[in-house]
């Protein structure tokens, strides 16, 4: 097909503003999916995504559209995640597109994250097409939303399509505007092949499947490709495009198109997202500009509940890393938990998603440690160390000073919640910078916040204090000196390394108190009394006692019926399997998890 009749675009929207619903409507309208195959939110095909109503991974689909001008068009729609943790995924999607549909909720207006992603799109030279959604809602005020787009982002929006994705209103207008507003891709079929990898995953039958955007040249099955970052070469087995539910093989992929490559690639390490694919016999001179490497901000230890599953966990992490380059991991060992991995994440949601995917898709039972940020510790000998694992935190005597990462945080909120949010930020050791009215109904609150105060449960706290109306975005600002201490947890007098964490000295007592309470609630009574203590450098700051299990007896085995007794012991054995033995104390998995969410 003529390049002029191709449009590559993505959709930018805040969580719940209707991105996946609009994508579904577009799929219906272009009859890409037979109606019987239609499931709500088809693009979000991970279970977790459907359940949480969010998009985690970028996903792509090719659509055929018969326009009002009588011509047929090919649309490549690339879905993007909306959450702050997944900025990196967003920029991957953007690099494969010429334009972006910006969805704004007619009743809510622009949210912090939408703004961040829109700026990303503008940085990538994408044409932004604003769309006002949910006009069917009683509280909808499309004019205000359009004004806000013009005032806040600075792009014309008064003629933006006003739609209801849910009700299917004005969807066709959006598609027509895609044709008129978003430019067709450029590129020359005769140039050497240059294709950008924007996603990949492992298929047990075909090996690694590469999703790419062909920028220059063309590619067909049988061609030998070279991945420019590693120099690895493979013979292409199949090329094609992404149907809504299946991969559809085609003869060749041309400049301007979005498609997939299967080349029997077995080693997932060979393909990295952001790399350039070229033809081995006629390579291009320069690779495309890749993505800037994102650095994990939050670290946590992940351990298999069953120690024997360690190799399975490694395997699963490797496979996940293939299409989630933002995930990093390296082996670590814990006295309490055995062999596991210290994993780096972009944020807390990213961490939760990875854990859930490991558990669901790879059927692993996990124990995770409290998330930690990277602390910068200046030692008395003049050297500096970076600590992402509390276990490695130096002895207080060796520390000249410690620094912790802080972020620039922007919170968008209706004015009535400003007081609540300020209180929250204050409580989280935030420093107020400024407050701007975006319009009479929306305020932008700017705070400097320590990262370790938001990795736990800041989102949840913010949502509950603003009835869900506030949105939040942050970027790393740098390091600032801080009074930090390492808080240890002792069970029956012994330190449990996996439960140690770094905390600001002013918060240590409260946190210590809470942790020992939580552990007391979550560790079952043992045959003897177990003290649970929190300590800073050997000084106990909080204590609870798990009382000894006094009575656990089956007094009567009537008439020689010992089956109940046996069942009981079986159950006990099963339960024991889910426990970690720390010295003589059996600790259930839940106890480790319970200290992660202290403010619930």
């Amino acid at each position, binding site marked *: 097909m003529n390049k002029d009749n191709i449009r590559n675009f993505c959709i930018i929207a805040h969580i719940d503003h209707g991105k996946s619903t609009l994508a579904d409507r577009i799929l219906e309208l272009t009859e890409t999916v037979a109606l019987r195959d239609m499931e709500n939110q088809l693009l979000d095909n991970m279970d977790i995504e459907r359940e949480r109503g969010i998009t985690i991974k970028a996903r792509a689909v090719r659509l055929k559209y018969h326009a009002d001008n009588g011509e047929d068009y090919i649309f490549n729609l690339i879905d993007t995640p909306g959450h702050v943790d997944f900025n990196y995924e967003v920029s991957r999607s953007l690099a494969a597109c010429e334009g972006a549909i910006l969805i704004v909720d007619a009743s809510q207006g622009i949210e912090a994250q939408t703004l961040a992603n829109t700026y990303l799109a503008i940085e990538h030279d994408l044409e932004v097409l604003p769309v006002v959604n949910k006009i069917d809602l009683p509280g909808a005020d499309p004019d205000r939303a359009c004004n806000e787009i013009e005032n806040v982002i600075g792009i014309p929006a008064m003629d933006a399509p006003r739609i209801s994705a849910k009700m299917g209103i004005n969807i066709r207008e959006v598609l027509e505007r895609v044709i008129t507003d978003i430019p067709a891709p450029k590129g020359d079929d005769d140039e050497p092949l240059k294709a950008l990898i924007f996603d990949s995953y492992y298929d047990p039958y075909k090996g690694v499947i590469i999703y790419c955007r062909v920028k220059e040249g063309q590619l067909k099955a049988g061609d030998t490709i070279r991945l420019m970052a590693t120099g690895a070469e493979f013979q292409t087995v199949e090329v094609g495009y992404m149907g809504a539910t299946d991969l559809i093989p085609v003869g060749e992929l041309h400049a301007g198109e979005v498609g997939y490559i299967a080349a029997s690639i077995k080693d997932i390490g060979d393909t990295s997202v952001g790399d350039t694919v070229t033809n081995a016999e006629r390579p291009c001179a320069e690779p495309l500009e890749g993505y800037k490497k994102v650095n994990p901000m939050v670290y946590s230890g992940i351990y298999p509940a069953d120690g024997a599953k360690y190799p399975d966990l490694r395997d699963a992490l490797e496979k996940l890393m293939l299409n989630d380059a933002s995930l990093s991991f390296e082996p670590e060992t814990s006295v309490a938990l055995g062999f596991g991995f210290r994993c780096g994440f972009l944020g807390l949601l990213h961490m939760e998603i990875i854990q859930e995917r490991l558990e669901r898709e790879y059927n692993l039972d996990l124990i995770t440690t409290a998330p930690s940020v990277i602390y910068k510790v200046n030692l008395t000998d003049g050297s500096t160390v970076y600590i992402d694992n509390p276990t490695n935190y130096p002895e207080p005597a060796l520390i000249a000073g410690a620094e912790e990462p802080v972020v620039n945080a922007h919170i968008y909120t209706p004015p009535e919640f400003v007081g609540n949010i300020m209180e929250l930020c204050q409580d989280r050791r935030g420093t107020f910078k400024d407050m701007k009215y975006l319009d009479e109904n929306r305020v932008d609150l700017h705070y400097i916040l320590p990262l370790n105060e938001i990795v736990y449960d800041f989102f949840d706290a913010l949502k509950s204090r603003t009835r869900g109306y506030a949105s939040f975005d942050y970027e790393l600002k740098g390091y600032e000196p801080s009074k930090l201490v390492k808080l240890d947890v002792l069970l029956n007098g012994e330190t449990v390394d996996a439960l140690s964490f770094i905390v600001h000295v002013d918060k240590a007592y409260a946190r210590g108190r809470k942790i020992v309470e939580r552990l007391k609630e979550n560790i079952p009574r043992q*045959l*003897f009394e177990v003290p649970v203590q929190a300590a800073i450098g050997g000084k106990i700051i909080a204590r609870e006692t798990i*009382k*000894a*299990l*006094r*009575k*656990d*007896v*089956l*007094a*009567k*085995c*009537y*008439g*020689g*019926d*010992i*089956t109940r*007794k*046996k069942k*009981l*012991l079986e159950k*006990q*054995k099963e339960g*024991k399997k889910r426990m970690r033995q720390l010295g*003589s104390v059996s600790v259930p998995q839940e106890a480790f998890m319970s200290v992660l969410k202290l403010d619930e």
Partner: protein
Amino acid sequence: MIYDSSVYVHIPFCERKCGYCSFYSAPSDEKTRTAYAKALCRSIETYRTMHLECPSVYFGGGTPTVMENESLISVLSKIKNVFELDDDTEITIEANPKTVDIRKLTELREAGFNRISFGVQSLIDEELAALGRIHTAEDALAAVNDALKAGFDNISCDMMIGIPKQSTGSMLYTADRLSELPISHISAYMLSVESGTPFYEMGVDTDDDVQANMYLDLCERLAENGFEHYEISNFARDGRVSKHNTRYWKREYYLGFGASAHSFFDHERRSCDDDTQQYIMRQTQQDTVNEVFPDELEEYIMLGLRLSEGILFNGLRMYGASEETVSEIRKKAEELAGYGLCRVTEKNISLTDSGFLGSNAVIGEFLNLC
């Protein structure tokens, strides 16, 4: 070659079901009871050709004494006829104090029953009422007296720990009053509220810590009163332990007859469905085999530790434990001894009273090493 087995007979009838009871029993009329006795005799008859010696017989329930003497005696006669009993054979019947009188007891004694176990539970009337028992403290004392007169010299009484409204003092009162009687045996069970019982529906609450303290107090008091604590819930004077129940803990064979009765025989653990009508209709007892060749080591530990004599290291070896396992078990026992839960000697491991209280968990610790 199997040469002996005890016999258990289950009589699943009660005048009224107690609020805490989770065992199988059903209301009945005389016709049903007679038919049930006949069915029991049929089942017992099937063992005739085996010529098994029988060291103990136990009629349990339900309330066996709600059944007419004629039926009870016909079943016992059948047992005597089919199995080989001798003068030492312990023949026990459970009884509710309200369902017996001197005439009934005399007949039973004459028919061969030589041990009787009364469900006394408490000697405080409010506590008996709270349990939903049909008898009073006076009924209980009278029944024991009648049994003595009828010629029973081996009498056991059940009492309960943790009855609603019971205090440590009132529990010890019951224990002392029972000890004053010329009885040889006391069984003391902690009230547990099982789902499906009226107590459970009523939301009766038991406090484990309170019960634990009461249990320890009771063990101490019964020891003072001359009773040997020979099994988690059982205390005997003058060496008169329940032979029958002890066989359960020692993994010796017993054949159970009647609805919901359990057997351990010829390396099989079997049970009969808890359906009285079906039991009567069938020509022979049809047991479900629950386990064939059960794990001997596991059972030895689990059952042996219920007894105050405990388990022998040589016993563990005999049931297949490796030297490594034996030494791990010894190490664990020594650790638990440090918490006062068991005693370890060169030869054996046994549980203390606190160990009995936590016996599920303690036994679990050992089983995890097997």
